[in-house]
């Protein structure tokens, strides 16, 4: 970095990035104590790796994504806050658990969903990837509030949205658009 010309450093500074540590700080500010996850290539390095060594967060690794919703429901009844960290494919896999716990029972299921393969600076609905393109419409049909977390300018939305999810007892989804670094 120190040997790079000034213009290169300036370009890097102005580039749109999503900083994993900022996302994790926002999660912790929301009182989340447990992260429930199946690894996702999109968030594995930028989020899951630092989360697993963060003493303020307990990481529970599950075998399938629907487990994370069952565990989060139990934690909620025991008065603990959880974040579900999964890939969009896992979100699709866990649809019945989401239907039951997030939508019908209106539990504060807080999901962070990695949009693996979403093109930078392309809206999810405009992605060339079918799986990425359908996530927002599905969330809308389910009535789940969603936030696109595409760069650092979006991170400030996370903590208030989690607070609201718990105070209103309703689900919320954060779509991780850009690969966190």
């Amino acid at each position, binding site marked *: 970095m120190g040997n790079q010309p000034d213009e290169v450093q300036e370009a890097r500074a102005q580039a749109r990035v999503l900083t994993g540590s900022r996302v994790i700080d926002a999660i912790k500010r929301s009182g989340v104590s447990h992260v429930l996850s199946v690894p996702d290539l999109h968030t594995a390095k930028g989020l899951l790796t630092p989360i697993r060594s963060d003493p303020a967060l*307990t990481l529970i690794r599950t075998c399938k994504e629907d487990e994370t*919703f*069952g565990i989060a*429901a139990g934690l909620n*009844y*025991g008065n603990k806050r959880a974040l579900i960290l999964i890939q969009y494919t896992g979100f699709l896999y866990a649809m019945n658990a989401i239907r039951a716990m997030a939508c019908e*029972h209106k539990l504060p299921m807080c999901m962070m969903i990695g949009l693996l393969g979403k093109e930078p600076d392309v809206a999810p609905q405009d992605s060339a990837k079918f799986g990425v393109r359908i996530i927002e419409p599905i969330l809308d049909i389910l009535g789940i509030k969603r936030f696109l977390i595409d760069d650092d300018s979006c991170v400030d939305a996370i903590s208030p949205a989690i607070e609201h999810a718990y105070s209103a007892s309703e689900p919320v989804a954060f779509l991780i658009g850009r690969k966190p670094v």
Partner: protein
Amino acid sequence: MMNRKIALERLKTLINDEIVVATYSTASDWIEIFDRPLNFFSFGAMGLASSHGLGLALARPERKVLVLDGDGSLLMNLGTLVTISAAAPKNLIHMVWKNGSYEANGGHPVPHQQVDFAAMARAAGIASVYRANDPESFESAVRQALSVDGPTFIEVEIEQGPLGPRSYKEMYKASRRQRLREALNA
């Protein structure tokens, strides 16, 4: 092999302030036998009773959590054994009530009748595993599970109970869930 209601009557005498997570047919019988605020009825997504139990056990480590799972239900979420083993909550007792059928769904058999769930639990890394097939061995297994650090697993062989749909309206009503929340967070 034993009658489920007889075993549940025995269970009623063995517990105090433990959280009980029950699902489908076992839940229907349990609610008749011991309706209490610390019951949690696994709702909406078959197979997740043990996941609910794990969440409760992690949230409330000072209380034992007993999961009354079904064999059909556990087969829908076998990975839970590995998840529970890795999370290793000392206060979780996971029972599978094994009758070889999807009793709540009309009594059709599960895909294979000779599944050894106790061996599966052991293979997943759960160290304390028990089997019960009559009221005496059931009581002994529960007493042991309550006295040791978990996670523990009990395979309970039972007869098939009454078939067909039961009313879940009462079991799943919101006031019952609120009662649990209040009991846990008082």
